[in-house]
């Protein structure tokens, strides 16, 4: 046992580093190649340039796609957060029959094969007579985002001491005043976090967008289209880098807010524990 323990750390540490390298090195190569003067993604770099980034601004198709992604992202994140608030509030506050199975069904899209869901959704939407547009993409994205919203919001709402709302009423505040002065400030970080997470997911979601979009494309679908042309690769790399950094910043911020919400709610209950 003792011998095992003394050997384990050295190779386990090595394995852990290798694992991290496997995940992140390819991703880190993206920004590196996006700065290359040559359009071919090869090391060593020929020279360093920012021209691919400058060119992005001069590509109307790309700008259109970015605008579409922004519209879809905002709509999907707001819709999924609103639905998520309702679900998370019900799941954390009330005990009702089939609570656990319902929770499971809400979270299921996380593990369902997305391509199957996308195809099914496509068939249903067409049967309903809806034509494909950014609206249908938003519907697909809401489906993908809701489980994330519910997960983030549940952790923010969990342990919310109901007596806080009672205390507010006891001190003379109305139901609406209580929501505004107690409930909302307590859960606001979780709500913002849910908005950021679902926006980020919608922003780089490809399969739903690919199947459900009409003539207007979102950024990932645009990138997919560009990959056919070798000359467009540096532009894609530059765009990819911007998306990567943007997603990273948004998700970090979302996680900070989520933890803050959780701490806040827990702190209120701590005295009781």
């Amino acid at each position, binding site marked *: 046992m003792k011998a095992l323990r003394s050997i384990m750390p050295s190779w386990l540490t090595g394995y852990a580093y290798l694992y991290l390298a496997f995940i992140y090195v390819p991703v880190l190569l993206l920004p590196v190649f996006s700065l290359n003067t040559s359009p071919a993604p090869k090391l060593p770099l020929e020279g360093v340039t920012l021209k691919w980034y400058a060119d992005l601004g001069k590509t109307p198709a790309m700008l259109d796609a970015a605008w579409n992604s922004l519209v879809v992202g905002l709509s999907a994140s707001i819709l999924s957060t609103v639905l998520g608030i309702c679900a998370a509030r019900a799941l954390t506050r009330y005990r009702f029959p089939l609570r656990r199975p319902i929770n499971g069904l809400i979270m299921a899209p996380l593990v369902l094969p997305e391509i199957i869901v996308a195809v099914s959704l496509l068939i249903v939407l067409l049967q309903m007579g809806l034509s494909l547009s950014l609206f249908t993409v938003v519907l697909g994205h809401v489906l993908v985002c809701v489980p994330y919203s519910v997960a983030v919001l549940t952790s923010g709402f969990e342990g919310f001491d109901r007596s806080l709302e009672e205390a507010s009423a006891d001190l003379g505040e*109305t139901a609406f*005043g209580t929501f505004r002065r107690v409930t909302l400030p307590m859960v606001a970080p979780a709500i913002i976090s849910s908005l950021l997470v679902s926006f980020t997911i919608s922003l780089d979601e490809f399969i739903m967008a690919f199947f459900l979009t009409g003539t207007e494309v979102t950024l990932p679908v645009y990138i997919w289209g560009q990959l056919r042309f070798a000359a467009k690769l540096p532009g894609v790399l530059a765009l990819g880098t911007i998306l990567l950094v943007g997603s990273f910043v948004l998700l970090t911020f979302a996680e900070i807010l989520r933890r803050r919400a959780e701490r806040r709610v827990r702190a*209120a209950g701590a005295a009781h524990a």
Partner: protein
Amino acid sequence: MPDKTMIEISHVTRSYGPFRALDDATLSIREGEFFSLLGPSGCGKTTLLRMIAGFDTPTSGTIAIDGQPMDGIPANRRPTNMVFQSYAIFPHLNVEQNVGYGLKRLRLDAAEERRRVDEALQQVSLTGLGKRGATELSGGPRQRVALARALVMRPKVLLLDEPLSALDKKLREQMQVELRRLQQAVGITFVLVTHDQYEALGMSDRIAVMFGGRIAQVASPKEVYQKPVNRQVADFLGGMNFVKAEVLAENDASITVQAPGFGKVTTEKPPLYSRNGAGATLGIRPERLRVLWDDATAPHQISGTVVDRHYFGEITHLIVQAPGFEKPLSVSETNNYGADDIPVGAPIRVAYDPDALVALAD
């Protein structure tokens, strides 16, 4: 103290399906009184408190506060304020903002609001901590914040839901003294819910002892302790030795019983006493049985043998088996005279005063 009624509870029942959390409770609480609702968990005391606060609605019956019926009046429009068991301090606000929370709706001018917040903080000895984050505080100060937040509203009634249960023993005892002092200083009617008999005995003007949704007895601490109406109340408020007795005679004021070990005893008739065939239960508190040292004698005494003892620092509980008694008697004696040195197996004599024997309804 004027005997004006502050809270009038008449025939209040609260049912959850077939279960009655509170069953036909009738009670008046006087203005300026420190009143406790005492009982084990599930006895309905918290349900009653929450109905006074307006968080719960009686299934039937009415509650009036200061002469005003409270039917249909929500919690935010009642002249009551509550100190919650969990304190329910708003974690996103600092101490001062917590205390001033309810004042915001009154739209006082800034100086007046400031003055009232400071006054409330001073009443609970939190002066100078106003800017602290409420969640940085530990249990004791948090509870003071909860208290200040309620008192600042100058309610007609302050409701306290097991406010001391989360504190450690030392702090709890200190807060008991402070709560009592505070109540006398502000003169507001306090209604305390507790399951701790010492808390209720030590702080209250009057106590309602509750069991299974019913109010068993309402009386002063001394009276509920010395003259419990039934066996349940007697047992809940400290220890009691019970003896089955045979009723020999009874009139309106007293009953005479023949009890094994105690012989023939005439005692005050308990208010709720109902004759259970020919039997009655007689009770005596362990501290009313005194050890007779050396050659001392007393007009009423019992001889027996010490079969067990429990040491509690200032007192010792001696378990005494005496002939004629079905169960061993529990005797509580101070250690001033060496009760802690009496060995198990030693012969012992204990004295009692027949007045200390109470007849109990079952």
